[in-house]
């Protein structure tokens, strides 16, 4: 690998510089002699596939991990060694981690100021803390976020805001953001990008990690690409384009981002008639056909996940009717849903999808244990061969079926969850944010898999906050807002403008919610 | 209040005037060790397994056993046992000592029936087995050194109580747990004797306080608070409950108004007796009890105490009588008072 030094601006000492950094976990080298630097007032984007080592690199910068011997880390030209995150904070480095690190039982204000709360004498000054939290959140365009709310009860987007406010509260010279937009909807993303630009204008250096190309081009001054733990190169953003970055990342070019294949649409499989769950899902009616991909668009909190949970029996419908192949069914638990052929790939992979402590084999077989067991005894041979098949079929990059799921990269974890549900031979597959936090390569693989499954006659519901994905993959698009369906679009009539408008200007549309069931 | 604790065995209250109860002569009903080696005059190792270790009472019995062992010169005795009065653990302790091959076992049973199988196992292994303080079923041991007959305790306690609080006074009892066999039997005998000889005594209630100092104190205090002037006496059934009750009476400023009688060791009671807060304390001397038990075991091992004998020599205690088939009576319970309590140190 060659490092591109051509773009180095020799005159400016970088704020932070990493030289020859390596990191080994349990004998496996996940970072290999990486050089990296950040300058004041720049946004430096860090790119790479899942598992390329981005998070590891920034965790070294933030004192979370110690690099292997031989590396060098300087701040303002002076060598430093961080023994704990505390030291990095003191050096002016603030980090928004990929896995949000918040305290669910504390208030928003306290989460923001934990570790450096304002004091009067010995005692914490709660009022000052709340006041400053308020100001920070207002600064982030979040006037609606109550500083006294329990963080555990907040939506993902709001938690993200708290996390960013927390980083800002430290008055950092370097702000590191690891996939801050992974779980944000478009408008939230824009709001975040504004914040980042404002910080840059103030002279703060920013390291920005994201799998979303448009953000990189909208924001970054320079971009560094990692692949398999090695540095591929650092370029000014003006010198690269989308395709170049992708090929730097994956080492090959990706032909098509949304490889939508049209397949013949079959008979109705799933039908919802006026399904409601409390006030979170209200009066949803729709028809889903074999081979069809139904995209569900909406803002955060619009009730898309709630709808999926209702169909899947986690929060059973409080009224309305669900029909499968024309037969009315009652779904009161995920088990019943599974047994009648409904599968759900949940949005929170780590919490709801995977048992990280268990092996790929155990994860893949989890939803159909009863089918591969006789007299309750699990058939281990069958199970292992199933896991090997899944690894082959879904292209899961793993040492083998006995590898622990938690050790895989995000994209591969997602494939394991998908494999688990496809193994049950479902008729309906619901995928909630199927490509959240997943690199371009894996993303297109998952899209291809989705099309293939639809082609095999599966009816697919895809919930996504990424508008291009919804538009690119769906045969039909259903827009939700406030727990209601506000509009449905056919693939042909769906453009970013009309769908986006339906998503945001829905308040008025409630009364006129269209019946998806009556769509052609 | 009606006492429902205890087992269903009949009570046998003594005569009110102190005529000794008639004890029907009974043939030996104890067990016999199987093929014990000849231990006559030889050095023997003895283990003492009380109900629990770490309370004053059993510390005193252990001391008695140690004293006797020293006096005899040919007994090697040690005390070991559970830290809580638990039938299961006590059984395990005995079992382990049977396996390790001691010559003699001294025990105070947490439960007479539960302990029987393992004691029989000891007898079967040729070990000499003697009980004290709390009996097992007779055939599971050779001899039992009885500190005082249940009905004797019942009479002494109720008589002292009636003397202090008057024939129509009201009293309450603080005991360890309702399931402790000795305490349960004593309470049953007290109840029967009070009914027979002091019918106007009013028994208010009985509370449990484990073998726990602070809990006993709190329970006694609550009784004082609850009954106010109505409460004339508290009876402590254990050597833990009695001093704690006396402390409760003292701290409540009720000395002289609420009498405390009960079973207790002199050292714990000295402060209260000396301050006249407690007039008399009932107890056999537990040091003597352990001492006698050790002598009886030695005699059984030597073969000098045989089934059918009517008395046994127990060192400084002199001749002790065999009663009730296979029990050896220590003597009447002793009443400590201000005059004599200073002479005892245990």
């Amino acid at each position, binding site marked *: 690998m060659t490092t591109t030094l051509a773009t180095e601006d020799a005159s400016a000492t970088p704020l932070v510089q990493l030289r020859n950094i390596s990191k080994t976990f349990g004998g496996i080298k996940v970072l290999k002699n990486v050089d990296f630097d950040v300058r004041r007032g720049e946004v430096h984007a860090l790119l790479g596939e899942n598992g390329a080592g981005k998070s590891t690199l920034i965790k070294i910068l933030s004192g979370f991990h110690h690099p292997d011997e031989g590396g060098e880390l300087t701040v303002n030209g002076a060598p430093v060694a961080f023994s704990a995150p505390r030291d990095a904070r*003191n050096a002016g480095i603030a980090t928004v981690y990929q896995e949000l690190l918040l305290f669910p039982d504390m208030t928003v204000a306290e989460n923001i100021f934990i570790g450096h709360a304002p004091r009067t004498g010995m005692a*914490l000054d709660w009022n000052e803390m709340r006041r400053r939290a308020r100001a920070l959140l207002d600064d982030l365009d979040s006037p609606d976020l109550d500083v006294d709310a329990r963080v555990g009860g907040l939506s993902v*987007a709001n938690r993200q805001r708290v996390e960013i406010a927390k980083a800002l509260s430290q008055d950092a010279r370097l702000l590191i953001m690891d996939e801050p937009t992974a779980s944000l909807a478009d408008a939230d993303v824009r709001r975040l990008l504004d914040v980042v630009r404002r910080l840059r204008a103030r002279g703060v250096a920013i390291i920005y990690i994201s799998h979303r190309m448009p953000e990189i081009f909208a924001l970054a001054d320079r971009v560094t690409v990692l692949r398999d733990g090695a540095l591929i190169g650092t370029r000014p953003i003006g010198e690269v384009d989308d395709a170049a970055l992708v090929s730097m990342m994956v080492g090959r070019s990706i032909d098509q981002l949304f490889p939508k294949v049209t397949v013949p649409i079959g008979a109705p499989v799933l039908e919802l008639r006026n399904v409601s769950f409390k006030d979170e899902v209200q009066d949803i009616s729709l028809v889903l056909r074999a081979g069809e991909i139904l995209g569900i668009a909406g803002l955060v909190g619009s009730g898309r996940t709630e709808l999926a949970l209702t169909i899947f029996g986690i929060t059973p419908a409080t009224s309305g009717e669900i029909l499968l192949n024309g037969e009315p069914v009652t779904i009161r638990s995920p088990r019943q849903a599974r047994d009648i052929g409904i599968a759900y790939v949940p949005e929170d992979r780590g919490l709801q999808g995977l048992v990280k402590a268990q092996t790929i084999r155990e994860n893949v077989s989890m939803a159909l244990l009863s089918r591969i067991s006789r007299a309750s005894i699990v058939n281990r041979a069958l199970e292992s061969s199933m896991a090997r098949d899944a690894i082959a079929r879904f292209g899961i990059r793993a040492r083998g079926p006995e590898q622990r799921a938690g050790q895989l990269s995000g994209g591969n974890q997602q494939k394991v969850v998908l494999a688990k549900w496809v193994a049950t031979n479902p008729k309906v597959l619901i995928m909630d944010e199927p490509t959240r936090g997943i690199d371009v390569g894996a993303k297109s693989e998952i899209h291809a898999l989705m099309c293939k499954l639809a082609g095999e006659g599966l009816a697919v519901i895809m919930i996504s906050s990424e508008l291009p994905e919804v538009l690119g993959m769906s045969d039909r698009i259903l827009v939700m807002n406030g727990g209601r369906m506000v509009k449905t679009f056919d693939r042909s009539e769906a453009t970013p403008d009309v769908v986006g408008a339906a998503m945001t200007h829905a308040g008025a549309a409630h009364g006129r919610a269209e019946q998806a069931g009556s769509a052609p | 209040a009606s006492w429902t604790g205890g087992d269903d065995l009949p009570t046998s209250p003594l005569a009110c005037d102190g005529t000794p109860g008639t004890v029907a002569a009974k043939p030996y009903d104890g067990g016999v060790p199987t093929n014990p080696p000849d231990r006559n005059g030889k050095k023997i190792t003895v283990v003492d397994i009380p109900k629990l270790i770490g309370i004053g009472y059993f510390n005193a019995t252990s001391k008695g056993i140690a004293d006797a062992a020293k006096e005899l010169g040919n007994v090697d005795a040690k005390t070991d046992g559970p830290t809580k009065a638990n039938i299961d653990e006590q059984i395990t302790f005995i079992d382990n000592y049977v396996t390790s091959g001691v010559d003699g076992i001294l025990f105070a049973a947490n439960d007479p029936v539960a302990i029987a199988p393992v004691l029989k196992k000891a007898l079967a292994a040729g070990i000499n087995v003697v009980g004290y303080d709390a009996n097992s079923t007779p055939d599971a041991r050779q001899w039992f050194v009885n500190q005082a007959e249940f009905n004797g305790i019942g009479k002494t306690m109720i008589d002292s109580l009636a003397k202090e609080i008057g024939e129509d006074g009201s009293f309450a009892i603080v005991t360890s747990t309702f399931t402790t066999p000795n305490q349960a039997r004593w309470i049953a005998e007290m109840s029967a004797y009070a009914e027979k000889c002091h019918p106007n005594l009013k028994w208010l209630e009985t509370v449990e306080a484990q073998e726990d100092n*602070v809990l006993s104190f709190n329970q006694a205090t609550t009784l004082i608070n*609850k009954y106010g002037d109505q409460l004339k006496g508290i009876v402590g059934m254990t050597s833990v409950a009695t001093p704690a009750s006396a*402390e409760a009476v003292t*701290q409540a400023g009720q000395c002289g108004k609420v009498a405390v009688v009960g079973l207790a060791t002199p050292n714990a009671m000295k402060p209260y007796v000396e301050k006249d807060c407690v007039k008399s304390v009932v107890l056999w001397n537990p040091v003597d009890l352990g001492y006698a038990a050790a002598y009886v075991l030695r005699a059984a091992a030597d073969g000098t105490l045989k089934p059918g004998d009517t008395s046994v020599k127990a060192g400084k205690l002199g001749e002790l009588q065999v009663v009730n088939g296979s029990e050896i009576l220590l003597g009447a319970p002793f009443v400590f008072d201000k005059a004599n309590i200073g002479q005892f140190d245990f």
Partner: protein
Amino acid sequence: MSLDIAAPRRSASTGVFARTIGTYGQEFIILAAIVALFIVVGFIAPRFVSQTNLTSIFSGNAYIAVAAIGMSMVIISGHIDVSVGSLIGVLATIAGTLAVNGYPIWIAWCAPIVVGMVITSLIGALVAYVRIPSIVVTLGMLSILKGGLISLTGGAWITNLPPDFLIAQFRLFGVPSPVWFMLGLTIVAAMFMRYTAFGRSIYAIGGNPEAARVAGIRVERSTVAIFAIHGFFAGIAAILFATQLQVIQSTVPAGLELTVITASVVGGVSILGGTGTVVGSTLAAILFAAIGSSLIFLNVSAYWLRSVQGLLILATVLADMARRRGVK
């Protein structure tokens, strides 16, 4: 396009009252239970609410409340100490032994606190640096302390304690000192938990240790410190325990650890860590003491006492669960 996209579905502005109920809900439930108990039982048996009985209830069980303060901190930090009963037994014995052997009274008072802190710091170090789960360390410690105590003392009672030593029998304004200790320490601890950075970091460590670490909290060091503070409270509890009577049993009080843990968790300290207050645990300790006393006043057959206690624990916990679901 409107930027106000995350318009709160559930209104964000909660009133001060609702917020207080939200934070201190469990404390209110227990307080209500205590008040209700005093009213009802006092109505049936007026002596129950007499000043002497109230004093006995508070004073006789203050040591449990004091120990529960430290225990609450440990549980809030996501750990537990099942050895606290044995520890108190050991510390009480140390205090008594020093007192009867002629050491100055202040040494007899301070020694158990220091020794308590040393032992719990050791526990904390094993938990924090060697990463042995606290329940395992303290289960082991329970045995070690209990067995060690009996080995050393043989269970001999400590008598002839000097009167000056019996701090629990002192009174101030007619109120026994344990009550003052209980009140004072609860207030100090509550302020400490609410208004100091270290107090808040206890919640942080219990709520999310990883997040606490990246927030710059020295998790290991703090964990040791939390256990040390717990040892401090255990030491004070031991002194109150030891000086209540004129003898010290020098054994481990049976089941004391469960009583202390129960007071903490019923007082609203989440066993999962991260939430709870020391006010709640003190109230719960008072509630249990009051229940124990009231059963005697109500002539509930002592045979059923423990079932009633079990039911009451269940009732308060279920009420709390219901409340949490209500507030959410």
